[in-house]
């Protein structure tokens, strides 16, 4: 990123190739709407390009990238009238017990379980599994503290584990 900041266009191509898949899946699995996910995905990279001159290596590039993505998601949910609450007790959207029984033996069960997580927990899990962020980095990217990030991640993993063990 520093090389790109200093004018090396090829450095951005390398950076993009390294993070494009994980970021896309993060955004896609956070929104469940492919068109909106593609739009937010592209907007996240445009913001990276426009902010390159202000980039300061105080944290990993991954943390900075997913902070941008998190802020875009929050803005999207705010426009939709939704709020990313800091509660692990929030009922997951689209949680249909009937559907869960039907998809018990397939990989889709896991995906459904993931989609059924509260947004904050789902986001914590995706940042951990897809982006490879630590608890501290998750806290930094989401603008929360480490205890909250750890709690969300723990609850997410417990629920997903319970879903696959059923």
């Amino acid at each position, binding site marked *: 990123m*520093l*090389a*790109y*900041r*200093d*004018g*090396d*266009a090829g450095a*951005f*191509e390398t950076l*993009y190739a390294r993070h*494009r*898949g994980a970021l*896309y*899946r993060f955004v*896609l699995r956070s929104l469940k709407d492919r068109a909106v996910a*593609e739009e937010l*995905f*592209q907007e996240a*990279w*445009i913001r990276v*390009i*426009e902010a*390159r*001159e202000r980039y300061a290596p105080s944290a990993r590039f991954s943390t900075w990238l997913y902070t941008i993505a998190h802020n875009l998601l929050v803005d999207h949910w705010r426009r939709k009238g939704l709020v990313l609450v800091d509660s692990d007790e929030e009922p997951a959207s689209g949680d249909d017990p009937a559907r869960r029984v039907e998809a018990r033996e397939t*990989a889709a069960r*896991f*995906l459904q379980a*993931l989609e059924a997580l509260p947004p904050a927990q789902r986001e914590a899990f995706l940042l951990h*599994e*897809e982006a490879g962020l630590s*608890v501290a980095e998750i806290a930094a990217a989401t603008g929360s503290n480490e205890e909250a990030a*750890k709690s969300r*991640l*723990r609850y997410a*993993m417990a629920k*997903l*584990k319970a879903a*696959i063990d059923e």
Partner: protein
Amino acid sequence: MSDDPKLSQRYRDLPREEPPRAIDEAILAASRRAVESRPAPLVAPTGRRRWYVPVAAAAVIVLAVAVVAHVDREKPDMELATSPASVPEPSPPAAAVEARKAEQPKPARRAAKSADSRFAPDPRADSAAPAAGAPAAEAPAPAAPPVAQARRERDAGDRPARAQTQGASLAKVAQSPEQWLQRIADLRRQGRHEEADRELAEFRKRYPDYRLSDEMKARVEKPQ
């Protein structure tokens, strides 16, 4: 926070969604446009390029110091060259030697050589008249000797002549006969007859065999 490998594997088994190619192209094109439109910021580079800045700065400083030092060295030389007072006067003996080298004619070579060896024994005088060396040295200079004795004295006359002209200026002694005559002629022209007479008398003692042309006589001798 300990990871659950089974859970991670289950997640990895999900379809690996990738962004569409069109979106890739659009993002990469935007990144290239941004670099082309806005040059790199004027901040110190970091990482591998960090050494460029201090090396470039050091090179500039060294060059500047060298230029200043060169100018300082040149300045005194330039001032010395342009100041008339600082131009050293050539030493009279050196100037006279230079003039002698330039104007020394053949007939006067012997006399010039004698003039040069004012403080040194004239080898010719010593060798030419070994027998008459002692009496010639003892003979009084102002007295008018007999012909033979005069000849001996003439041959060895450089020594008494040398002794007589010891009080003369270095310029006179070092100059050629022609220059001396010219100086006498100048004195005549300037109306300084007493000086001209003195100089002419000394000249005749020094170069008794020197034949003056009619023209030179008219210029150096006192007008009747």
